[in-house]
């Protein structure tokens, strides 16, 4: 009995009605979030019954603002970026009805945090070279291998996992994609300390981990296709966020500039203005991208948003240290910790400068994104490939 998807006015009404029946001050946060999901007001562009109403995607920020304004509890998206930005759209696109019903609700409410078991020591940019093996055993798969740079694996309940199921065919064809229970026997998570001093990411060792076949996403051998969808979503999730003007790193520097006139120099003034313009251009580009994305999966165009975001973050955070002068020589804390979220604004300028260096590596390096734009958007000739028709097992490693 589904009707036409609601427009902005209809969504406003629905939020009001929902808030009239659910008092955020009187309810347990989790109960409130579950009810919001069930009312289709979680991610409005998702289908009915799965937290959405099939509404245009660009109406989401307004819904979020209305809930925040009413003092509603947050699902703390900063704790579950991989779940919300990558696992969810992949499950939506490739999951069975059963998988969608099982995973999406606790993912959105934040009850279950997700991580991404993609990269391996021998397979980074060249993800399709990965060697973590999954071997069929009745209605299960037995997984063995090592993953690396796994952000938030220490917090995660579930993982999206891509494996090699057929080593005898060329690399792109022999991969299969799973959902992996991070509490299953044989999953071992060890912290990896990074240049900021802390450990957001981890090594994950998988030893005889039993994954039920019903946790397979997509067909056997279709893992590359599913992974590509995840990665496209990742890039949009990283670069295409709805932010207000001066949201993000530029706001930090703009505030500093306003509050500390003694730090200003003519040279830095021009630099601040240049970066302000670029940040505003990137912000408007993200808005346009979301307006285009009202339906369907993001294409390679989303890579541009991520590319620009990484470059901007690095230049802005570098400028912040220069602006601070002597203070820029100090760091807040090198203690090895395992944070539950990544937050650029709450830590020191030195942290921001260092953490931003990861932006051009995580989620596809800037060089790889340029290759993708050049080849998939502009149609320029591909790189010379020596590995295309070679069975995975015969590739030089």
């Amino acid at each position, binding site marked *: 009995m589904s009707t036409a998807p609601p427009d902005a006015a209809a969504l406003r009404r629905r939020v009001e009605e929902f808030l009239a029946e659910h008092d955020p001050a009187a309810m347990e946060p989790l109960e409130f979030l579950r009810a919001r999901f069930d009312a289709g007001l979680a991610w409005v562009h998702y289908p009915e019954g799965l937290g959405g109403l099939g509404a245009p995607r660009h109406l989401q920020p307004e819904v979020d603002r209305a809930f925040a304004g009413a003092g509603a509890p947050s699902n703390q998206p900063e704790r579950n970026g991989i779940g919300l930005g990558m696992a969810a759209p992949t499950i939506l696109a490739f999951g069975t009805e059963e998988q969608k019903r099982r995973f999406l609700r606790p993912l959105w409410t934040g009850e279950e945090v997700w991580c991404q078991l993609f990269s391996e020591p021998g397979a980074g940019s060249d993800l399709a070279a990965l060697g973590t093996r999954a071997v069929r055993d009745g209605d299960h798969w037995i997984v063995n291998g090592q993953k690396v740079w796994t952000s938030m694996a220490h917090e995660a309940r579930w993982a999206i996992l891509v494996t090699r199921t057929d080593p005898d065919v060329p690399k792109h064809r022999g991969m299969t994609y799973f959902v992996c229970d991070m509490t299953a026997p044989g999953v071992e998570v060890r912290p990896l300390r990074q240049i900021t001093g802390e450990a957001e990411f981890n090594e994950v060792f998988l030893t005889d981990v039993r994954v039920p076949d019903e946790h397979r996403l997509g067909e056997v051998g279709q893992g590359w296709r599913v992974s590509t969808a995840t990665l496209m979503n990742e890039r949009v999730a990283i670069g295409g966020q709805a932010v207000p003007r001066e949201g993000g790193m530029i706001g930090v520097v*703009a505030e500093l*500039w*306003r509050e500390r*006139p003694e730090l*200003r*120099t*003519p040279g*830095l*003034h*021009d630099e*601040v*203005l*240049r970066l*302000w*313009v*670029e940040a*505003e*251009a*990137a912000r*408007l*580009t993200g*808005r*346009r991208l979301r*307006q*285009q994305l009202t339906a369907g999966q993001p294409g390679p*165009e989303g890579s*541009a948003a991520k*590319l*620009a975001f990484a470059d901007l973050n690095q230049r802005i955070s570098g400028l912040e240290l220069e602006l601070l002068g002597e203070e820029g020589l100090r760091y807040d804390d090198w203690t090895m910790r395992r944070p539950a979220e990544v937050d650029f604004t709450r830590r020191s300028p030195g942290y921001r400068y260092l953490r931003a260096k990861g932006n051009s590596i995580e989620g596809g390096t800037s*060089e790889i*994104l*340029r*290759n*993708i*734009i*050049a*080849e998939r*958007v*502009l*149609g*320029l*000739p*591909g*790189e*010379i490939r020596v590995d295309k028709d070679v069975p995975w097992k015969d590739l030089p490693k």
Partner: protein
Amino acid sequence: MSDLLYSEIETDLRAGVRELLDDKAPWNDVLAGTERDEPLDAALWQSLTDMGVTALPVPEDRGGAGATWRETAVVAEEIGRAVAPVPFLTGAVLGVAALLAADDRELLESGRAAVLAVPFTTDPHAAFTPTVRAGDGTLTGAVTSVADGSAADVLLVPAADGLYAVEAADAARAPVVSLDMTRRLCDVTFDGVPARRVAEGDAALRTALLTGAAILASEQLGLAERCLESTVAYVKTRYQFGRPVGSYQALKHRLADLWTSVTQARAVARHAASCAATGDPDLPVAVAVAQAHCSAVAVRAAEECVQMHGGIGFTWEHPAHLYLKRAKSAALALGAPDRHRAALATLVDLPPAP
């Protein structure tokens, strides 16, 4: 929140204008035109006028199409792609914007090309100092570097107490050998020329300059896009060392970066046009951002176009130089990027060093 996409009407409009320009202003004709004394392609301008695209934002009861600056911006993109030698930015944007602000029925309905007599570099954010004096219904003084001044039917001249209209033929217009020969400049002298005041104060001038700078961003976008497209097409077919030169990462990565910048240019140009269309109070910021960004992108696109074509791109017989000259001139026009950044310093409260 501004809609940054193109509507169906805009897409149809674009197709119509592109067809006309492809037919009547192929680049080799535009190139040949730069060697002639006539500053513009009068037949093409007439065709655009007949199509109704030179008075898009003018209300129907003033003889226009009753559309908005958003549609106008789409036409500007196409004009930029074609580096068309017509007074579109000057007549159909700056002039029309001034007349709309002045609500000058007579000139709007006449459909004559009214061009603002200000130096083309005039910064829309800064106070304007008139160089022409008004008195007894006449104007006296001189204005240098007026874009499309020779193509104008009517000149709109700012003086201390308002904006005046004079018959272009009454002023002395000395053609200037211009960097951009597809949008030529002239130096104009007024020697007691009869004039009629169309607006008091400087509000009409200010609105016209801001609107012009907003729409110029779309022209720059169109030009940048054309440069990118033709460069991408070329590097796919040019072989050196047994491979298309477009298979080398040194070029691929620069083109990917350029595509990214052009994508951003589209968003900021659409935002600026949208703000102009709705009279959004964000217009000055949107214009400053769009000009600071799009000027640089158009110049980079044209420069890369020359470089990635190699020797052929440096020849007179290739269109790359038409784009380069238009792009560089457009970057200086209506406030160079540094002026727009300086304006932002005030607009968004990022004051200079003491």
